[in-house]
Every structure is written in structure tokens, then in C-alpha cells.
């Protein structure tokens, strides 16, 4: 049975009362109207109890009407879309909405953990630091799980978020943050001057406080139901983003905003994201974020039905909802008197206006008289009503007390500018004595603040300050705004006489109601020496809840000031940091999740390999064929077959992922001499050479072969993993170290599809591809030769006689558009010669059999010496890493250097990652002499083999060591040997 909206004020407000939507709260079926928030709809249905607090599980209702809400947090939606801790005050009502209260068991009305309140004296600030220590082992086993279960608020979903997110970039002259009177007026002024403007507001309706207040603007009546005027006749270049919170200010005029594109709908429409992250680059920004009303702190001030006075007006005027039928107003400022007038005009009863100001207020007295309310000079000292206000107790100036029955207590302790964004870049707020609040201090370059965010109070002043800021920002962007249409507002305001808290004997007086931080906690912290706001925050958790203290920080500072006998302006404040309001992680990740986390690079033979049933593996951004299994084969069998076939006949492997860098220029050879430890200037045209690069600190960076295509033209290859890094390094060498050299480099990785064709039959296969009249006999095209050929009817190809496998081998490259065609042609040409493709796994086995260093050995911790390449280091020339590479510690024999390992039992795998200790020694650190880098089963040797880095390794061939892998519980004996297991003299590759 749907609720009846007993508290709806018919004919009031901006919601569409002609249309009804239904929703559920804690399973109860209720109704509301388009334009409602969940909070306004709950209030319309007479529901005041919405949640339970963090520590004491006290009943809590709705305090505010905005994103600063500390209490009314719910779990919105269900299943994979469940969103814990969502503020009822910002949830736009939609048909079918489902929400549930949180942090209660078994039910919201009867919550067992509310018993915590009984132990409150024990649970004061920081109590956990002083206890739960005995016995020591109980923390993880008992206390911590108990605390964890009790802590947290809502339940997260454990399923993947089903919605999508996106990011977008925007550029503007002037970014206006907040579309209240100041923001609208600023956007209008800037846009009229010709600036490109972006106007953002977190609300789904524009207008800010204009939506909540009655009054005249520019002679137009402010009757409820009036819609705010948009910037005049939609100016040419003003993009308006509703439901968009600018949550962070970053260096260089970068602002981050999140647009809740579909949160007001049950699920995002087709093709629409749930939320969109805006990266806005603005030359100028104007913060018109308004202000937060401040509660006054008194005993039991957290009861449902205690509400900020401005929020009361919002519910009445904007939403057409009566937050209560019988109200009491408790405020230290005249601005809050509008609440009494608005309530009375809506036909509701105002029982009393309680004025704590010592001097009282004639205006208040007058409003009281006009609304039929009592005017009482005094304070609220107690609030009764287990699940909502029923009675308040007033203590008057003379010490007399009385109780008043009411169901709504509207409170106001003044307003705090929402200056959060002004401090994200390190600006410190300034204390303003006359306004009794923090106002923006030093602003980052290109930022202005206007309206209530800078402490303005009246609508007129907000409009004027917005216009001035908008015009000023446009001027700073080089536009010529017209003279302001509004006179500068009178800045003479009556000094505020703030009342921060009411001293009460009984009843907890909450400063931060979500985190249950009471006045007593702040005082206890001060007593224990936590006297700066940051310490108080960290010790008591004041301001650390989901609202980040928007309604509590300053009250906390005031109480701290009083407790420590200091001037409030000297106490300081904690720092606001991004985000302004909480931002979903999904929005910040955008498109980049799942398989779209990072781009995927596919090789030219990818489609062909898929057709062959290849298994792929991620290698950096690339997908490479790991192996080409045949039916019924185990992985080991596949690899063994691929290796054996290559060594016996011929195999083909896509090596296009290797980094390829085109190096040209008259000084190209001299340049290579500087980046490699060995020389290249004497390399003949038509030849290739292996080279090793060091970092300047002398450790190995990368290796590869470089071919000389012409006197002034080289073609370098790098490892797949280091391709980008090497390119960057070469550019550094060119531009920073040796700008005098005539050398140009450019990546050619993507241009060339490159295949290794390896095995005794490789020459026959390559020859079959060559157009006629080209000779690749051993004499014409020996080991390490390179050249340009025509293949398959005129396709230009680069051919290199290089071998990573140790077999007679070629690498053949064609423009990548022929890559797919070439792999098919190679397979066709090789069919008669027993060709089979091999993947990176077999490639790895063959390079281990040959003792070639690869990623596991080139791990950034090894030197040329360690890799057995120390002799390649030229003594005669300058090169990167030469000087520091000669340091003794990088060359001493005791360093771990590359060796081979053969297990004594050939059938036992030698674990990669295992450590080496002397045979018979214990597996402890003192005996650690090295580690296994790579391992494989060698079909040729019919034995497992491994490469390892071993202290003084090259001198220890023949020694038997213990290979310890305690992590996997294995120990093996293995013999140290040369890393060149197969064809150590390299005869095969020269045939």
C-alpha cells in the first residue's frame, strides 16, 4: 500500500505534483513526485528516521538538503548496482527507486548495537589506542574483526560494476562553479563579454539558493514555484552542465568534475554511461559554490527532526514538503527568521523562536509576533523523542526552563562559505571575525570567488559579486566586458554574534554527528594534548566522515578554541582536499577497465595465428603467440615439438614486436658508438652486429642487433619490453648529450612485419620466397649479413642472417601490410621442408639452450661483466655507462655472473627463482650465492637446463650446487656449466 505523502504541501514548490512516482525505502512502498530528492520524498511521507550513526548507532534523520548531509545515508539500488552511503538529500527520485537504511541490525527502529551508547563513557575519543592490547594475539583474532564488522556504514557490492563510465575533455575561458545567483550572474557576464564559459552545478536544477528562498530578484516576485532565469537568451558560448560537481582544482587551471549522467534513472539508458569525468582546462575559474549552514551544538542535537533552518526552507519552498507540522526555530542570526515566515506562510505552526544572542533581536521579535510564535531569549538544552523530536527543553536567559512540544527543530548557527576548492592548491582560508567564519584566503592564479562562497549574504550582493567576477575573469582572458549593471553591494554587515554550543549537563552534544564525535570527545582530546585541529581530527575522527566535516569542522575548532583558551581565529583549520564531495572510482577510471584497461597491440600474423589455434600471452602491450598446440598435446609436448622441429627442420616465429629503430645521418655510426659498449663505426654496409647498451650508471639496459643498411643508415632492434625506453634514451643522447651529431632516429617497429625463419632448412624456405636472380648462399649472404631483396613478385623485403635459436636462421621483414600474406607464404614455401610455427615459449627454450641473455638476465641489476660480455666494453671510446661501468664493484669476480645449470637428475626441473647454495649447506641467507633466472626442458639434451647468476660463476663450472626453492618446497642438485648448452661453437648458424 503506497504511502499518502501526509506532509506534502499541495500547490507548493517546484516538484511536479501532477505526476506520481513510486519508490521503496526499507521495503516500504512510497510515492513522491518528479523533482523530489529521496530525502524530500521521505519527509513528504512523514519518515524522519533514516539511518543509524557510526559508533553509537543513534537514530538519525535528515539534517540538510544538500551534499553536505552527514546523517541521511542509505544504500541505493541493489545487487551489483548497490551504492552504500548515498546521501538521501542528493538522490534524485525516480520511479522504482529502491533504498535501504544501513548500519543497523536487525532493523532501523530496533538496532541492537545502539546498546553501544550505554558504554559511551568507555568509548570516548581514542579509547581503542588504550585498550585491546591484552593478550597480544587477540587483536587480529578477536578485537579487530569485531571492530571491522561494526565499523563501515553500508554494504558494498562484491560484483563487478555493470555500468560504463567515460571521460571527456573540455576547454574554456571561464569556468563557473555553482549556478546559484552568483554563478548565474558570473556566467552571464563572462559569456556576454564573449568568453567561452562552462557553468557547472551539482544539483539537477539550476538556481542554487534561489530555488529555496522566496524574495524579489530584479523586481520579479519570488513566489514559490518561480523558476530561476537562465543566463539571458542562452548566450552563444555557455555550456551548462547540471548534475556536475567540480570536485578538484589541480595545477595549471585543470579542474576535475563528475557528471552524474544516469544516476537519476533506474539504469543508464542504452549507449549512455552512468557517470562522466570532465577534465576541464580553464583560463579563469569562478568559485560560486555557496555556503553551508552551520548547526549549533547542544545536547541530543542529533535527533531526527533537528534540521538546519535553510534546509527547512528548501523542503518547504522547493519541494513543497513540510519537514514537520510544529516547529521551533533556534538560531543566532536573523537570516534564519525567513524559516519562520516561510513555514507560517505554508500553513504550518511555528511554536517558538529561541534566540541565544545575548542582545536579542528586534527583527526576531517582530517575526515571532507576525508568525504567532513565542519569542524566547535562551537556548535549547534538551531534545526528547527516541526516533524523532517530540519535545524540546528551553532554558531562558533568566535560568527558567520550559518544554515545548514540536516535531521540527530548525537550527542555524550562521553560514560557512564553501571555500573548499580554493584550498586544493595550497591556499589557506582566512578567519573573518565580523562574519564569524573562514573565508577564502590567497587564491591560486586564475581563480576568483563570488557570492556566498566569499561570505556575501544577500541575493543582491551575490548577483553583484558574481557579475563583477564574471566580468573580471572575461577581462583577464582578453575580452572587454561592459560596465557592471549592478551597483556594488553594501558590504557593511552587522557583525555576527555566533553561538557555537550550548553547555548542557546531560545528553551527548554532537559536533560531527556521522562519526559520533561529541563535545566531550573534543575536550578529552584537548586534555590529552591534541591541540591542533589536525591532531583533534585524527584523534577523534572529527571531520573524517563522508561529509568531511562540512557542517562540523568549524564548530569543532570553536570548541577546541574554548577548551584550550585560545582565540578561534588563531586555532587554524584542517585542510580541504579533493574531492569536494566523494567521487566514484568508476568515473575516475572511465573506459579503462577490464580488457580496455590498456590498449592491446596485435602483430601482423595475429589473425593467422588465431586460425592455427595459437595460445597467446601478454608481453607488455603486445599479444604474442605462446605456442601452437595440436590436439591431444600437453603444453610441454607442444613446446618440445616446436623446438625439436625447428632444430631438425625449420620453424617460423613472429618477431615483429622487437623494437625497431631507424637510425640515419652522417654521424649515425659515431652515435651508435656512443650508445653501445662496442663499436659500430667499423661495421661494413650489409652487415649486422650484436650490441649491448648500458645505463649511465654502468648497468646493462638493453641489447639487440643493429644492421648497417647504408653508410649513413642503420636499423636497430631492441627487446620488446624496452622498445619505448630505448627510443627515449636515444632521443636523450641525440638532443641533450650530443646535439652536435647529425643523427635522426625514428621508430620503425610498426612498419615492418618481421619473422624469424630458423632451422637447417631455413635457407631453402627463404630462397623459395625470393624473386629470381638473388643469391643467399652462405658465401653471398653469410652469417650476420643483411640486405634488401624482392620477394613474392616484387615485395620489398629486408633480410637479416641473425639467429637467436642457434640454428641457421634468417629474419625477414616486409611492410606490415604484407605481414599476413608473408606468414602464409612462408608456411606454403616451408611445407615441403617440414616447417612448423613456434611461439615465444619455444623461442625461450632455444635461447636458454644457447645461453642468450633475455629479460630475466637483463633485469637492470646486472652488468656487462655479469652477462659474460665484459670484454665487449671498449676501452678506447666514450659511451654511455663507460665510466661508472668500470667501478670495481661492478666488475669484481665475486659478483653473480651468468652460468648454465644442469640438474644431476635430468628429469628434475630447476626452478626459476630458486637460490643457489653450496652442496650440503643450509638454505639460509648466509649461504646464498646466486639465483636461477630462466629454466627450460631441452629436448636436444633430454634434460632440464637453466641459466643462473652465480657468485664467481664462470670459474665454477663443474661444481655441484644445491638449488633451493623453499617457496615451492623443492631442493635439487645441479652442476654448474657453460650457459651454451647447444652447439657452443656456433657451427650450425654459420652453415
Amino acid at each position, binding site marked *: 500500500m503506497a504511502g499518502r505523502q501526509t506532509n506534502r504541501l499541495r500547490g507548493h514548490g517546484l516538484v511536479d505534483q501532477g505526476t506520481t512516482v513510486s519508490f521503496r525505502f526499507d521495503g516500504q512502498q512510497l510515492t513522491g513526485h518528479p523533482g523530489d530528492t529521496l530525502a524530500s520524498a521521505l519527509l513528504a511521507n512523514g519518515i524522519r528516521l533514516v539511518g543509524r550513526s557510526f559508533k553509537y548507532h543513534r537514530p538519525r534523520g535528515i539534517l540538510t538538503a544538500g551534499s553536505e548531509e552527514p546523517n541521511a545515508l542509505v544504500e541505493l539500488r541493489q545487487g551489483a548496482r548497490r551504492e*552504500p552511503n548515498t546521501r538521501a538529500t542528493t538522490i534524485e527520485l525516480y520511479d522504482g527507486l529502491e533504498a535501504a537504511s544501513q548500519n543497523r541490525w536487525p532493523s532501523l527502529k530496533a538496532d541492537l548495537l545502539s546498546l553501544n551508547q550505554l558504554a559511551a563513557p568507555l568509548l570516548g575519543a581514542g579509547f581503542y589506542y588504550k585498550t585491546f592490547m591484552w593478550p597480544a594475539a587477540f587483536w587480529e583474532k578477536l578485537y579487530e574483526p569485531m571492530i571491522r564488522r561494526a565499523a563501515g556504514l553500508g554494504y558494498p557490492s562484491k560484483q*563487478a560494476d555493470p555500468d560504463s563510465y567515460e571521460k571527456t575533455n573540455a576547454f574554456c575561458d571561464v569556468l563557473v562553479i555553482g549556478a546559484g545567483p552568483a554563478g548565474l550572474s558570473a556566467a552571464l557576464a563572462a559569456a556576454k563579454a564573449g568568453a567561452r564559459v562552462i557553468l557547472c552545478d551539482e544539483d539537477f536544477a539550476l538556481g542554487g539558493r534561489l530555488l529555496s528562498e522566496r524574495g524579489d530578484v530584479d523586481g520579479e516576485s519570488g513566489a514559490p514555484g518561480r523558476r530561476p532565469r537562465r543566463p539571458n537568451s542562452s548566450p552563444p558560448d555557455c555550456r551548462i552542465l547540471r548534475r556536475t560537481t567540480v570536485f578538484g582544482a589541480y595545477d595549471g587551471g585543470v579542474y576535475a568534475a563528475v557528471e552524474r549522467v544516469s544516476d537519476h534513472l533506474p539504469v543508464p539508458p542504452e549507449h549512455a554511461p552512468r557517470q562522466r569525468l570532465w577534465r576541464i582546462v580553464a583560463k579563469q575559474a569562478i568559485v560560486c559554490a555557496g555556503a553551508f549552514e552551520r548547526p549549533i551544538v547542544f545536547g541530543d542535537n542529533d535527533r531526527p527532526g533537528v534540521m538546519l533552518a535553510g534546509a527547512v526552507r528548501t523542503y518547504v519552498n522547493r519541494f513543497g514538503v513540510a519537514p514537520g507540522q510544529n516547529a521551533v526555530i533556534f538560531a543566532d542570526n536573523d537570516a534564519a527568521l525567513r524559516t519562520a515566515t516561510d513555514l507560517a506562510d505554508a500553513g504550518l505552526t511555528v511554536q517558538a523562536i529561541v534566540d541565544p544572542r545575548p542582545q536579542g533581536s528586534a527583527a526576531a521579535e517582530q517575526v515571532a509576533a507576525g508568525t504567532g510564535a513565542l519569542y524566547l531569549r535562551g537556548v535549547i538544552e534538551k531534545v526528547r523523542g527516541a526516533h524523532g523530536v517530540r519535545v524540546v527543553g528551553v532554558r531562558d536567559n533568566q535560568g527558567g526552563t520550559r518544554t515545548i512540544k514540536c516535531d521540527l527543530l530548525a537550527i542555524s548557527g550562521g553560514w560557512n562559505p564553501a571555500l573548499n576548492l580554493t584550498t586544493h592548491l595550497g591556499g589557506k582560508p582566512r578567519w573573518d571575525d565580523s562574519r564569524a567564519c573562514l573565508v577564502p584566503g590567497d587564491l591560486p592564479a586564475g581563480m576568483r570567488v563570488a557570492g556566498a562562497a566569499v561570505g556575501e549574504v544577500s541575493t543582491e550582493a551575490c548577483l553583484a559579486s558574481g557579475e563583477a567576477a564574471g566580468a573580471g575573469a572575461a577581462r583577464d582572458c582578453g575580452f572587454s566586458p561592459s560596465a557592471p549593471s549592478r551597483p556594488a553591494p553594501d558590504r557593511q554587515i552587522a557583525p555576527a554574534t555566533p553561538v557555537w554550543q550550548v553547555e548542557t549537563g546531560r545528553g551527548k552534544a554532537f559536533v560531527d554527528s556521522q562519526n559520533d564525535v561529541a563535545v566531550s570527545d573534543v575536550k578529552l582530546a584537548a586534555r590529552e594534548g591534541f591541540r591542533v585541529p589536525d591532531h583533534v581530527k585524527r584523534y577523534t575522527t572529527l571531520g573524517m566522515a563522508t561529509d568531511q566535516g562540512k557542517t562540523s569542522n568549524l564548530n569543532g575548532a570553536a570548541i577546541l578554541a574554548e577548551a584550550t583558551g585560545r582565540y578561534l581565529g588563531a586555532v587554524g583549520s584542517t585542510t580541504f582536499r579533493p574531492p569536494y564531495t566523494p567521487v566514484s572510482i568508476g568515473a575516475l577510471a572511465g573506459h579503462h577497465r*577490464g580488457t580496455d584497461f590498456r590498449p592491446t597491440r596485435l602483430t601482423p600474423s595475429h589473425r593467422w595465428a588465431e586460425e592455427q589455434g595459437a595460445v597467446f600471452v601478454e608481453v607488455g602491450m603486445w599479444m604474442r603467440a605462446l605456442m601452437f598446440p595440436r590436439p591431444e598435446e600437453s603444453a610441454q609436448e607442444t613446446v618440445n615439438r616446436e623446438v625439436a622441429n625447428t632444430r631438425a627442420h625449420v620453424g617460423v616465429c613472429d618477431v615483429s614486436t622487437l623494437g625497431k629503430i631507424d637510425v640515419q645521418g652522417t654521424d649515425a655510426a659515431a652515435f651508435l658508438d656512443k650508445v653501445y659498449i662496442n663499436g659500430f663505426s667499423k661495421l661494413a654496409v650489409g652487415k649486422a652486429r650484436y650490441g649491448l647498451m648500458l645505463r649511465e650508471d654502468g648497468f646493462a639496459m638493453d641489447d639487440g642487433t643493429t644492421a648497417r643498411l647504408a653508410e649513413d643508415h642503420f636499423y636497430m632492434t631492441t627487446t620488446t619490453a624496452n622498445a619505448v625506453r630505448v627510443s627515449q634514451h636515444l632521443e636523450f643522447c641525440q638532443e641533450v648529450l650530443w646535439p652536435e651529431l647529425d643523427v635522426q632516429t625514428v621508430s620503425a617497429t610498426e612498419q615492418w612485419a618481421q619473422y624469424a625463419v630458423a632451422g637447417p632448412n631455413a635457407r631453402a624456405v627463404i630462397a623459395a620466397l625470393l624473386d629470381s636472380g638473388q643469391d643467399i648462399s652462405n658465401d653471398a649472404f653469410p652469417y650476420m649479413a643483411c640486405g634488401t631483396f624482392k620477394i613474392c613478385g616484387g615485395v620489398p623485403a629486408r633480410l637479416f642472417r641473425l639467429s637467436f635459436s642457434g640454428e641457421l636462421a634468417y629474419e625477414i621483414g616486409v611492410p606490415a601490410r604484407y605481414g599476413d600474406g608473408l606468414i602464409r607464404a612462408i608456411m606454403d614455401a616451408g611445407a615441403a621442408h617440414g616447417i612448423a610455427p613456434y611461439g615465444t615459449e619455444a623461442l625461450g627454450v632455444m635461447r636458454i639452450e644457447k645461453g642468450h641473455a633475455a629479460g630475466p638476465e637483463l633485469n637492470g641489476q646486472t652488468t656487462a661483466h655479469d652477462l659474460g660480455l665484459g670484454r665487449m666494453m671498449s676501452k678506447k671510446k666514450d659511451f654511455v655507462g663507460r665510466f661508472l661501468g668500470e667501478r670495481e664493484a661492478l666488475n669484481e669476480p665475486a659478483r653473480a655472473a651468468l652460468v648454465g645449470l644442469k640438474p644431476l637428475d635430468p628429469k628434475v626441473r630447476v626452478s626459476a627463482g630458486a637460490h643457489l647454495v653450496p652442496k650440503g649447506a643450509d638454505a639460509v641467507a648466509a649461504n646464498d650465492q646466486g639465483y636461477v633466472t630462466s629454466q627450460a626442458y631441452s629436448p636436444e639434451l633430454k634434460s632440464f637446463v637453466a641459466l643462473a647468476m652465480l657468485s664467481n660463476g664462470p670459474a665454477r663450472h663443474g661444481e655441484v650446487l644445491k638449488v633451493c626453492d623453499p617457496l615451492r618446497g623443492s631442493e635439487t642438485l645441479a652442476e654448474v656449466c657453460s650457459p651454451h648448452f647447444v652447439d657452443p661453437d656456433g657451427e650450425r648458424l654459420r652453415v
Partner: protein
Amino acid sequence: MRYSIASLVANALTGNRNWKPVWREPEPKPAYDVVIVGGGGHGLATAHYLAKEHGITNVAVIDKSYLGSGNVGRNTTIVRSNYLLPENEPFYEWSMKLWEGLEQDLNYNTMVSQRGVLNVFHSDGQRDAFVRRGNAMLLHGADAQLLDREQVRTLVPFIDFDNARFPVRGGLLQPRGGTVRHDAVIWGYARSADTLGVDIIQNCAATGFRIENGRILGVETERGFIGAKTVALSVAGSSGRVAQMAGLRLPVESHALQAFVTEGIKPLLDTVITFGAGHFYCSQSDKGGLVFGGDIEGYNSYAQRGNLPAVEDVAEGGMALMPAIGRLRILRSWAGLLDMSMDGSPIMDHTPVEGLYFNGGWCYGGFKATPAAGWCFAHLIATGQPHPHATAYRFDRFGTGRVIDEKGVGAQPNLH
């Protein structure tokens, strides 16, 4: 006042009106035996162990702001000893052991929570590197376990196993790793050091050093000169600018690292988890928020804040690993300043100025090192000799080439 259940109850009965300040606020004396510059975790731990282990109590700890205003209050609270290199592992394992006994040592609940630190891996190469590290840990007497994919799934069922760009293939788990309540570490050490006689002086920035004939005579501060024959710097993040006052150039750059916390939620993640295909690490605090971080900003900075690219990078890593967190909201971000050293490992040593000691260059590892750094720095100050667990953390290693480069990226601080 010793903390116990009895004291808690007794104070509750008297309205909690009799608790005493956790530390005194003394005026600085004209001179001390030792002045420690930097009231962070390391500085206060050093003071605690100087007093407790070496009987040196005429000590002042000075800080330019409030205690714990630097990195000790800005990190992601992770403690672990899962290091690869023999120069590092014994040190961090000693730190782990000190964490394990810290609450009893300090009589302060620092909430050491040994919930396990899980590093997931995504390739065979990465697995082999993790195995090498795990074995190094075991050889040094630490704990480590290699998990396969299914064991990872049991531990963290909601990470992306089905649709990942870089599928999770397993993980290296250190069960004894975990988290510690960072602020409690500060307050616990401060309280203990104070009780042992150490003067803790907040809002007292060092403005210079008085050095004569290559010997330190004391520290100039905002509150006047404080004499000391031994001055110990423990100001990671600001090491560059403090060392400059003593005329020293360091193998250190200052970099900002952002961290993040979500709104509090009921228990989701029971371990510390790190992503292997991007830089993202995460745990859930006892209060319920997911606490996480990623890469440093990448450029020298003395601003305690970061920029948007790092935020997005962390969020992308988080979503790639745990797509269930998409609807959880980041509540707050902040940044600390890291001493990024040239080889990624710390420095704890004499300086060329006699009597001036340096402790810094902690990179990402400062918080987890807190107890051992205090222990070993106190040893160095008290005995003049490096502690056996910290013998490698010397300045001269950059000259000799005995660098300690866990990641193998060379003299490029922002890559460590």
C-alpha cells in the same frame, strides 16, 4: 599513566576528566646531548630507542609543525618485509619483528594487523621474479607463500579473473605483512619517549646548523639556538632542503605521492593487495574505508598534493584489478613527500659534518621501516657504528657502485 582496562574504567567513572596529556610541551633547553630534527615516525622512534636501548635521554625532538604532520600520517599504512636484496631484507624483517611487539613495548595500541600482503602476478616472468624474492625472504627467515590462481581467488574472490587485460595468474603472499594505524605509531612513540625524558618540541623549525671546523655545534631554530654535539636528521621528504642548510648535496629527490580513501563500508577486503600490471595497492582500514595508492607524481615537488593523471592512473588500476569497487566513492585524497633516492634504497649514515647524522631516502618504504629505522639510527648515533641490519645504507655506495636497486631501474628516482 599506564593504559589498561582498569585505567579506562576508572577514568570513565570520573567523566574522563583525569586523562593527562600524551606528551608534555616543554620549552626547549639551551642544549641537549642529541637533537633530532623531525618529529615524524622515524625521529620519535629514534628518540624512543635512544632512551630505552641506550640510556640516552637528554634528547630533544624538534618539528617544524605538529607531530606526525609529515609522511607518517600520510601513507597507506602498509607494513611488510617482502624485499629481494640481502642489503634490505634483514632490515625490513627486523622492522616486522619490532612491529609485532610494538604494542607491548609502547603500551599503546597501534593496531598492528597482520592480515597478509598479497602481490598478484600476471606472467611467467613476473612469477619467476616473485619466486626469487619469496625465496630470498624465506632464506632470511621471513615468511612467504606462493599462491596459484585458485588460491588467490579464495583469498580475494571479487578481483577480475574473467575479463582482465592482464589476467591474474597467482600471487606472492606474506602472511605476516599487514597494516598499522599510522597516527597511533606517532602518538605511541611520542608518549613513550616523553615518559623516558625526551623533550618533544612542536612548531620549532630548524633554520640552520651551527658548524665550526667541520663539526656540528647545534641547530638554529625558530625558537632560538639549541646546542648539541650530535644532531640527527630524520626529515624524509624535506631532506634536500634541510641538508642544504648544512651544505650537503644528497642522492635524493623529493617527490609527491598521493593516497586515497573511500567512504567507510562494511568489510570487503581482508588483505593488502597489490596489482602487478599497474601501480595500485589497497587495503581496508578498520574504520571501513579502502585505503589505496599508486605511483608517485614523477617530478620533484615540495607541495603536499598531486595532480589528476596520477589519480586517474590509480583508479584505472583499481578498476582493472577489482571491478566491484566502481561504485565506491573516493572520499579524500592527500599527498606525502617522499625522499626518492637514486637507487631506491635508504641512507642511514654519518655525514661529512662531524656529529651530524642522516636518515632518509626511504622512497615508498618509510612507514614500514619506522621501528627498525628508529632502532638502527639510535644504534648509529649511540655507538657511532652502523647497526648490523643497516650496514649497506651508506652514502659511499654510490661511489663504489654497491648500489641497492630492488627494481633495477638505475639512477632515476622517479622510477623506483
